[in-house]
């Protein structure tokens, strides 16, 4: 099975470790790229800045996006992802600890494919991550990758 790439946009180092741990447990074949803030994430996706030597056509198969990010808010990142032809179709799942109704509504309004709440209970969190990976990378038929011309 081909390798899938997951882009994790997360600023908290602990959460980063825990999430990667959960992801690796579910499927070792997946490659996880990490961006520690919104700016870095956008650089990664569009092959700009520090990621200028990355092939922008290699879109990740799944983006796990935290909302509470420095510099640019996660929702803004989401909007920019959705407003660019190259990244418009990439599945984005919001991964956040926020319980605010407004965040939930805004995320879906801005084009998120899913919204998962981070739980304190790690076992529960782990299981959720596994299910996400299972669904989006295996079960779900991915949208076609847009080729950059």
């Amino acid at each position, binding site marked *: 099975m081909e390798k899938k790439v997951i882009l994790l946009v997360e600023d908290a180092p*602990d959460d980063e*470790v*825990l999430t990667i741990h959960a992801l690796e447990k579910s499927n070792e074949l997946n490659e996880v790229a990490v961006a520690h803030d919104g700016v870095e994430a956008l650089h990664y996706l569009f092959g700009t800045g520090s990621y200028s030597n990355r092939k922008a056509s290699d879109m990740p198969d799944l983006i796990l996006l935290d909302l509470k990010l420095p510099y640019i808010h996660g929702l803004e990142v989401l909007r920019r992802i959705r407003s660019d032809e190259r990244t418009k179709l990439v599945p984005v799942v919001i991964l956040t600890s*926020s319980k605010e109704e407004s965040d939930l509504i805004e995320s879906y309004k801005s084009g998120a494919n899913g919204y998962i709440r*981070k739980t*304190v*209970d*790690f076992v529960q969190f782990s299981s959720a991550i596994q299910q996400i990976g299972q669904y989006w990378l295996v079960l779900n038929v991915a949208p076609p990758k847009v080729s950059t011309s």
Partner: protein
Amino acid sequence: MNTNDGDEKIRRQHFGEDGKQMTIRTKTLIVSSIALSTLLTIMYVTHLLSLSTNYVILSSLAFGVGFLVIFLLILDKLVLSRVNHLTEIVRDADTSRDMSKRFLVKGKDELSNLGAAINRMLMELQTSENNLRRIEENNRAIMGVMPDTICEFSKDGTLKRWKPAKNGDLPFLVTEPVGKKLRELIPIQCSEQAENHMKMALQTGTMQDFQYSILREDGWHSYESRMAKSGEAVVLTIVRDITEQKQAEEALKKEHEEGEKKAQQFQVVIDELESFAYSVSHDLRAPLRSIDGFSEILLQNYNDRLDDEGKDYLNRVRLASQRMSVLIDDLLNLSRVTRDEMHHENVNLSALAQKLTRELQESQPERHVNFTIARGLVDKGDANLLQVALENLLSNAWKFSRTREWASIEFGRAKNNGKHTYFVRDNGVGFDMAYADKLFGAFQRMHSNTEFEGSGIGLATVKRIVNRHGGTIWAESAVDQGATFYFTL
């Protein structure tokens, strides 16, 4: 019948009889003709007896005089005395204003008619005078009763006469207002306005209304003045002291402003609480996640390198962090209950209870629980908050009755002192009434965590919800005999 006759008699005496009349002229002519013809007849008879010419002349003279006397008597009776009487009556009415005398009407001739007419006029005058007097007395009584200052102004704005207010307060700048003009009576700033109003009142005949104030040693006195035209060149003014009213208005306005300010401050506090709750919700949970997560990873990845004690400690760490997470959630819910706006509507409590108990049963289908839910219980309140309250009460009942083989949970409404009281009853482990006052405190528990899990915040939440609906909540219980929670809305 007697009075009728009497009345009829008086009526005829005052107003004459209806019917054909015989004028005085006719009467006089007839009588004169009769007298003259009698005289002539006598003269002729005497002449026939051929008496001497002297006797004839003498007798003619005598008869002439006799005739004159008779004529005069008739004249007097028919005309002169009656005219005299009439004149007397009219003069009396005119000079001494005595309108009570009436002319006695006899017969139906010109003087009778004149007399009747004069009688009628006198009677009308008398009635008018009585009415006028009554109206004047009425007016005087009204003015006397009115506690305000009443003044009369002439067209040029001079005060002609006035009646002071009951409380003795003068709404003027001077103590002797008679003869003074408006600008001498009230402050210059207001007098021009007052003069205009007076002009308007005279021109348009509408009532004019305006307010003015006078500064005295004890502060500002405010007055309200109403002017109305009362005749061609007279303006009636009523002045009322409205100082108290004005003060009340000012006080009310100030209260309003302060109320607004307080509401604003309140809103600020609420907004701050809102952002506080949000940061709590996010920021406090992150470290908890780390604690729990890494403990679990330790347990997983270092399983073989840990002895039982080590594993136990790590498990305790995990449990503690999870418990803290629950506490945070509960606290947040409690604060939301206080913060959120309430939307009042009709809520079907029975349906709500049915739904919640169904969910409870589904969560643990193996338990045998007898649910008794009264039907048709509807009340006014916030649907979301009431659901939270019922959820808390029912899940408590569910939790604390799990020791029973056959648990029973009841939700219904009873009348207590005429007020509708809702209750949730279970046959579970109950609690000691000695500690009942602690029941609804935040984080207060009646049982240890090993017996029954819980944060102790559920009942505090319910209490707050009930309070926000303007109701009260209390409970009755005995150890091992179940518990009943009562609340009103």
